[in-house]
């Protein structure tokens, strides 16, 4: 049983949406947090529906539509989305109004739109899709929980095409609520300096990535999704064990891996743990970053998935994500490894291949 990535689309702080260029046109952001490059949503979503779509829903629906268009499907057998924090804009709106108005004169729209499964639900209504529809909201493994769900459907042969997405949005207010927790950088750093700066904290961001996974290969196929594995808590020794368990179960060893995408985000200690991990197992492999493109957020790994898929199709590593050059000429097997930054838990391994 093989799972093919037949369509994929991402809206991120870089021009990644609806374009053929693959991370060659880079915006040199320099700010304390980075937000998405907004497309003209009216071109991708029925304008009449836009009025009831906040930022996260627009991002989600636009990328879902593009991914389905690319894969040439209009009614997936399942819609599965992952989000770390859900619909922050509407949550803040309702919460603030509720507190300011002392619980009077409140309106339903922002409450309804704040429910976590809103993006998946909107897509279902737009498509008239009565099929399986789940939303995972679990830190850095929300997207991976969705992928595992999809994999199980394919193993059961109960699906031909599944739409899977990972989305998180950022607001200034939400950024401010975490100012005291010491997880953000104190200054606005250029993204090209992110990994050289060697200081505490990261630059948060946002993105939406949707992909169509299919049981059959087509001319739009990017790559294959092989497997996903997550662990809640693990120290270095335990994570090494989990890595070997994961690779062995897929009949691979560390030497078979050509490229590793790491969840490094600019925080010196956090990044060092990844470099130590790479040093232990992948000293010859290409090491790539992705959070310098999309910023730190729970669904950043969905963006990593986009990067890995495109890279496998084009057989090319864009300069902006190349952290350390490796030995492989052919890019065959790609591993994505990341874990939650704030709590140092929720680890995930994702394996893709050409």
């Amino acid at each position: 049983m093989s799972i093919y990535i037949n369509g994929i689309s991402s809206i991120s702080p870089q021009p990644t949406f609806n374009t053929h260029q693959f991370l060659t046109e880079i915006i040199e952001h320099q700010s304390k947090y980075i937000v998405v490059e907004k497309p003209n949503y009216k071109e991708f979503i029925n304008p009449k529906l836009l009025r009831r779509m906040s930022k996260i829903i627009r991002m989600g629906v636009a990328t879902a539509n593009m991914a389905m268009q690319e894969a040439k499907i209009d009614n997936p057998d399942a819609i599965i989305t992952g989000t770390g924090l859900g619909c922050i804009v509407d949550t803040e709106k309702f919460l603030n109004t509720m507190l300011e108005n002392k619980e009077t004169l409140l309106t339903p729209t922002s409450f309804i739109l704040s429910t976590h499964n809103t993006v998946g639900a909107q897509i279902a209504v737009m498509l008239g899709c009565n099929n399986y529809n789940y939303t995972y909201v679990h830190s850095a493994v929300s997207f991976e929980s969705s992928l595992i769900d999809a994999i199980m459907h394919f193993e059961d042969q109960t699906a031909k095409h599944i739409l899977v997405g990972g989305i998180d949005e950022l607001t200034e207010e939400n950024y401010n609520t975490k100012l005291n927790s010491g997880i953000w950088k104190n200054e606005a750093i250029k993204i090209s300096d992110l990994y050289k700066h060697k200081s505490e904290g990261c630059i948060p961001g946002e993105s939406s990535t949707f992909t169509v996974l299919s049981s059959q290969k087509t001319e739009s196929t990017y790559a294959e999704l092989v497997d996903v594995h997550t662990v809640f808590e693990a120290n270095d020794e335990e994570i090494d064990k989990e890595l070997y368990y994961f690779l062995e179960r897929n009949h691979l060893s560390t030497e078979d891996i050509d490229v590793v995408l790491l969840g490094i985000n600019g925080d010196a200690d956090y990044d060092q743990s990844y470099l130590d991990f790479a040093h232990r197992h992948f000293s010859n492999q290409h090491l790539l970053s992705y959070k310098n493109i999309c910023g730190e957020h729970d669904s950043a790994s969905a963006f990593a998935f986009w990067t890995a898929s495109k890279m496998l199709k084009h057989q090319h590593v864009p300069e902006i994500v190349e952290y350390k050059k490796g030995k492989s000429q052919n890019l065959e097997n790609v591993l994505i490894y990341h874990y939650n930054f704030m709590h140092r838990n929720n680890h995930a391994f994702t394996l893709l291949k050409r």
Partner: protein
Amino acid sequence: MQNLKLQVIEQLNLEDMEADEIDVNEALFGDGLGLDSIDALELIVLLEKEYGIKIDDPKKGKDIFFSIKSMAEYITANK
């Protein structure tokens, strides 16, 4: 009623609409402007916020919110 139209446009986030595009007799729900049950709840809040009129039974909304004209008439009658 022009003012009411603008309030409705704002409350329901009908971004690209101009007040003149809404006919006062036009059905707001169903085929007309295509509003739905959530919009009806929004309009109930609008009535309370701007005109101090409370509607306790959402089912009454169907008649009151039929059109801009019926809304205006209800407001005048109950202010």
